[in-house]
């Protein structure tokens, strides 16, 4: 591996060296009311981690897309400034007797995530490991799910957490990636068969059952376990990923429609069966029915959006606390977008959505340029997993869809989510690196 230059990446990372310390200074001045920028350690740490990632990619000779890392880092920077500005004691970690605040813990996870990203980008340079062992990966994912179901800890009515000693993680994040790898492998192999319809059932044409069944079986299994673990957001995300990948592989909107109908049916069943699903849906329809009870967080989020207006309350000046408490308890995780929209306003929040869109477009571009179907499907699936997750949580905050407990990739507080998101960027870098190498071999690229 020969070291390469990544000039665009460096250039797009540079503004972060201004953005993050500026954000830290603004929030500190707003909070204290004195002309004191406050401690800069964490801000410098964040910038250093991102530049470290850039340097490592250069040394590893990665020729992949140069906008992926800066886009992810920029999204992360906005979230990091926001997290640092919140009361630090609310969340955080106690690691080997060292108590860390929320921002410190998050910075640690940024470092772990970037390391994982570089490692993945290097390890999966050859796609064989992923593509040829797809059933093994699927099995591993299933096993993880089973473990969660058996030993998982319940948070807000959903079994989400698995604990290894003191460190807990959300297996859903890992399963998400494994699911994408498996579906990509399967679809790349059977794409032509799935696309060329042969069987007719009434007015709809479906592919031959032998090819469809394994797909359906795996899918139903995953959904079943997700339903059993009662995690609505992850179920929605998995379904979205699956349907999108099926659409890209076959070009059939009818599959997507069938899937959505299945989901609506399933959601109706879940509404009937599970109390916490019912509460969430009822709150979605009208949170103002019980604004101080079950609808509290949704209503407070809407108030936060309203307070923001066009320019925002100003960084560091939002969130009037009610007798010392945050108005929205889940602000650092589920409602971080509402917090950002309050302080940065419509302008800032739209910019954040724009950055997420940049990341999605670069991922899709990577998929389009890939030379083989597996790489294309893999990149599509990974990109969509980031994009859909962002859309689902943003739409949930905005009351467009019922709120579900998933994170805003790169923004929300939480190690598992951050790690998984950077692994996804690493895989995208690996795919786009391979494309670039092929182009070099043919003398068509730099």
């Amino acid at each position: 591996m020969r070291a390469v230059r990544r000039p665009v990446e460096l250039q797009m990372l540079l503004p972060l060296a201004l953005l993050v310390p500026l954000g830290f200074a603004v929030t500190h001045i707003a909070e204290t009311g004195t002309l004191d920028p406050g401690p800069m350690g964490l801000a410098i740490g964040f910038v250093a981690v991102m530049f470290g990632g850039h340097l490592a990619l250069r040394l590893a000779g990665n020729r992949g897309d140069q906008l992926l890392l800066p886009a992810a880092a920029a999204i992360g920077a906005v979230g990091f400034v926001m997290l640092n500005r919140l009361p630090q004691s609310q969340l955080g970690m106690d690691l080997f007797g060292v108590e860390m605040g929320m921002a410190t813990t998050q910075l640690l996870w940024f470092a772990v995530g970037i390391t994982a990203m570089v490692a993945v980008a290097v390890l999966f340079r050859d796609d064989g490991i992923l593509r040829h062992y797809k059933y093994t990966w699927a099995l591993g994912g299933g096993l993880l799910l089973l473990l969660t179901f058996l030993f998982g800890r319940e948070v807000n009515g959903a079994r989400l957490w698995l604990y290894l000693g003191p460190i807990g993680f959300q297996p859903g994040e890992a399963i998400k990636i494994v699911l994408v790898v498996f579906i990509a492998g399967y679809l790349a192999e059977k794409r032509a068969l799935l696309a060329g319809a042969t069987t007719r059932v009434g007015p709809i044409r479906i592919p031959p059952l032998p090819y469809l069944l394994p797909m359906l079986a795996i899918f139903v299994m995953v959904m079943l376990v997700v339903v059993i673990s009662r995690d609505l957001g992850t179920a929605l995300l998995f379904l979205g990923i699956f349907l999108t990948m099926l659409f890209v592989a076959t070009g059939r909107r009818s599959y997507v429609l069938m899937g959505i109908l299945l989901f609506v049916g399933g959601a109706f069943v879940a509404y009937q069966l599970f109390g916490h699903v019912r509460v969430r849906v009822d709150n979605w329809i009208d949170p103002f029915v019980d604004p101080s009870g079950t609808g509290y967080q949704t209503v407070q989020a809407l108030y936060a959006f309203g307070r923001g207006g066009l320019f925002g309350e100003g960084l560091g000046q939002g969130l009037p606390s009610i007798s010392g408490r945050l108005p929205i308890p889940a602000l650092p995780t589920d409602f971080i977008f509402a917090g950002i929209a309050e302080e940065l306003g419509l302008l800032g929040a739209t910019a954040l959505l724009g950055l997420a869109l940049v990341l999605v477009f670069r991922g899709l571009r990577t998929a389009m340029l890939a030379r083989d179907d597996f790489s294309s499907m893999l990149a599509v699936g990974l990109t969509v997993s980031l994009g859909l997750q962002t859309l689902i949580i943003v739409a949930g905050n905005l009351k467009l869809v019922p709120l579900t407990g998933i994170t805003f990739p790169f923004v929300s507080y939480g190690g598992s989510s951050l790690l998984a998101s950077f692994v996804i960027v690493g895989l995208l870098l690996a795919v786009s690196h391979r494309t670039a190498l092929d182009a070099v071999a043919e003398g068509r690229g730099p």
Partner: protein
Amino acid sequence: MIVTNIRRLGFYLLLAFAVSAGSLAWWQIWEAPGLADRQDNPQVIAARRSAPRGSIFDVQGQLLASSTVIDGISRRTYLDPAFSHVVGYASLRYGATGVERTWDDLLTGRSDPNPLNDLLNDVLDRRAAPRDVTLTIDRRLQDFAAAQLGGLPGAVVAIDPRTGAILAMASSPTFDATAFSGDPETAAAPWAVVAGSPGDPLLDRNRRGHYTPGSILKVLTAAAALDAGVITPQTTYPDQPQQETDGFVVSGFTIREHDLGSLQPALWPLSRALQVSSNIFFAHVGLDVGADRFIDYARRFGFCAPLTLGSASRALAADASYVSARADGGCAPFSDRVELASAAFGQASVDVTPLQMVLLAAAVANDGIVPDPFVVRDLRAHAADPVAGPSEAVVETYGGGSGRRAISSAAAGQLRAAMVDAVHGLIGQVYAGAGSVARYGIDGVLTAGKTGTAERGPEVAPHSWFIGFAPGQNGAQPSIAVAVIVEGGGAGSGAAAPIGGAVMAEWLRLLAGG
């Protein structure tokens, strides 16, 4: 091909992000003002909790409500329970009502009447100065009206028919809001006492009370018929005498007259029919006006839609009144002729607020024009010492609306004459004579009016109603219109008419400087 599909996917995702951004703009720009005014918004609570809150004065500069900040918590003191419904309350725990709610942002300085200052304050993260509010209500008349009700459940509302300024608006029973508008920690007990009291003292009967009007609605029927040319003051219904004994059969349903005592049936024109309050006469008139036209005239007087007290931008809200069943967006069409005939003399599905009824009287007094009612006269700079009176610096004035014409000037004149007869006529004074200001020491002034006895079914005492205005003689400019209801007060002539007459007389006395 995959590449084409990915391109399509990219378009769909772009669309989804655009929808999210659109929804963001919806909440942050379009819905933001509505959200900022909601009572449980932490922004509202925080401002109410700590900010020095502006004072509220009556039209004479008498202090009605003021605040002091003790231990970082703003405590509100209300000086006159007669105003508890109009002024409302601003509790840290139970939200706000009345003027306290509608003017909350200006009283606390959450916003500034000048939008430019508002923007500047927002940008600089400053709070606007708190402002004081002056009502159109005269405390002397308000207290007088409240005393007249004497704790009986009911309401009195008085308006200047020329300007729409509310002169008095008393609802009974009332309550003292001071006890639960201070420290939220100690507010629960006094609140429970008020909320649990009999007679629903928290209800503002003038704006939110729903009643059957009975005969006072005949004024609306007559107004519609005169304006539409369906009747003249001379119109009689020939078959009337016989119906007086047998009843008037509409679609198989017999409409009967109330007990007319020793009166002999005769051919009655409008003036006489209003004096004796003939149900059969007005059933005929209502049927001749027709269902659609009846509802159309009701709308012109403000029925069938929520009322507001104030300007377009800022107003105290009041419930809608209905002449037929409620439907989406107003009054449903009459279901049959019986309902129309009954509505014409104020029974069936008719459901009104006292505020609507005073507007009806005021429109007749004001030459056929329904005035635009308002209850806050102006906004002023905050007076440092509210006991010494309000500041001279007026920031914004309200009211001044020109009203809407409901009926022609000629029709209004004919109806006014009939309403004067209803109080002063030979038969009329038996029923409504108690509403005449002459009985309360005002000489040389005629009063126009109409009593109502709203039947509520057997074994239940009817509501007692009176609407009227004075001075009512030809050529005089009426200076006050009133609506009075005493719940379960019996006949209109008994409970309501004397209160109406006394309140109008008191106002004329105050105007004359006595």
